[in-house]
């Protein structure tokens, strides 16, 4: 664990904390963007170029923009009167702790099964491409189908307004 790791980790955690603690919704969305960027840097520091850049492209370029658009289009950036904290925050805390425990258990349990590698495996973009359309072609197709369905659904939702008499 180097200094770089701690710097990036601090940045990511600060972004995540700011996202839940800030009062302004757009500020929270921007803080989430910082956290996404920190995660991308973590991938990069692990020599996973493809994952890191894809993280920036997808999460900062698309997901963050989607979030701010959703906030703006629903006029949700105004501060609610009863504070930003939900009354059922304790349930949320339990769910979050539960999912964290499951994830942590899975990671810790999988650690011994991995061979103690000394050298970093060199994964090139070419290998990722071959794996994507070879071994993992079925998941890829399922994701593609899901996205197509989502697109068609979005078109139908958008078309609905035209038919309604106004």
């Amino acid at each position, binding site marked *: 664990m180097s200094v770089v790791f701690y710097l990036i980790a601090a940045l990511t955690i600060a972004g995540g904390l700011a996202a839940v603690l800030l009062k302004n919704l*757009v500020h929270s969305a921007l803080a989430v*963007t910082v956290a996404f960027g920190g995660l991308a840097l973590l991938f990069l520091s692990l020599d996973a170029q493809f994952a890191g850049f894809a993280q*920036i492209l997808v999460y*900062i*370029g698309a997901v963050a*923009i989607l979030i701010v658009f959703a906030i703006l289009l629903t006029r949700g950036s105004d501060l609610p009167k009863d504070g930003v904290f939900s009354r059922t925050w304790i349930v949320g805390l339990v769910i979050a702790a539960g999912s964290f425990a499951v994830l942590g258990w899975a990671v810790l349990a999988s650690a011994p099964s991995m061979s103690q590698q000394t050298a970093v495996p060199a994964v*090139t*973009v070419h290998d990722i491409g071959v794996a994507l359309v070879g071994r993992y072609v079925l998941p890829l197709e399922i994701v593609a189908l899901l996205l197509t369905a989502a697109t068609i659904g979005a078109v139908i939702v958008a078309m609905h307004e035209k038919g309604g008499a106004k």
Partner: protein
Amino acid sequence: MIDKTIISNLDQIFLLLQHWLVAFLPVGLQPVAAVLLSVVAIVCVFPALFALTTVFERKGLGRIQNRIGPNRVGPYGILQPVADGIKSLTKEDIVPSSANAPVHFLAPMGLVVAVFMGFAVLPMGRNMVLVDMDAGLLFFFAMGASTEVSVFMAGWSSRNKYSLLGAMRAVAQMISYEVVLLLSSVAVVMISGTLSLPKIVDAQNQYTWGLPHWYIFTPWGLAGFVMYAIAATAETNRSPFDLPEGESELVAGYHTEYSGFKFALFFLGEYLAMFSISGLGTTLFLGGWSAPLSSLNFIPSWIWFFSKLMLSIFVFIWMRGTLPRLRQDQLMNFAWKFVLPFTLLNLMVTALWRFMGEGWERWVVCSAILLGVWVVMGRIEMRSEHFGPRSYRYAE
């Protein structure tokens, strides 16, 4: 015949200069200093090019619009950018009182930083690339995508309806055309089999009968380049896709509420984005730094790269002086109903090209498919349009 060593020394002159300068430092500092020197070079060269381009653009537009253009500061107005720079540095920096100050402050910086990062992977000459990444193309697009956040930040934090509308337009437009930009570049990746930009240039740097193997000289490459050029124009918010800053409706779009040096940063960011996207187009389709004829290889590679870059900039200026601005619905229809389907078709044709193997058949088949679909799609989409003699409703 000029001596071979002089030619190769001229070709590598910046690298030699870098090695010579770095050699003065202790060995431990040398790698860091080498990278720093390259970064400084990029940070100096492109803003200088930006300053030249603003004069070039104003003079060119002036010529197109039958007027003279700037001609007061220096000979032929060449020192105009210096005057503009001093003006923007000395102007008062106004932040609207209802603006969201931190976000308002961070937006221009985020934009310029993200745009500068894109230059890191562009090969600007033989061996002249700052970082040769395995996934360089992906890095470039990742940086391009993160400028959208800055644009949104600028528009939202200004608390101005024009800024917000401009930012929404800009982001919607950038997302729509980014899909096309990515997909048209994927065709190149499919043929060259790599995401590393120097390797893509190497793949094009071969000659048959003295003619280069640039991708633009293949059917799929030409179609891909046209689609890339359209998407690049939209991505950089240049005319005819400059709705986000349509001055007749939105004052200046997302940077309406910026003044002084922050405005200059936005201006710089816009032009730098233009340079970097032209540089990427040059690298992907126009052979990067390779010479257009094998007999012209004695001219240094960086001269070719920057000539191609400036040629693209000239075309950008030319289009700005020629084409009227699109409407919002025309912009979106054009992107999703014509450019995107055609780019997807181009991907199929590229795969066909790849698997048909060498020979003249693939030239005929691929050209026929692309041309046929181009004509049919054009006919179908233009069917509802009626072009007759222009009629003036109010100016008769």
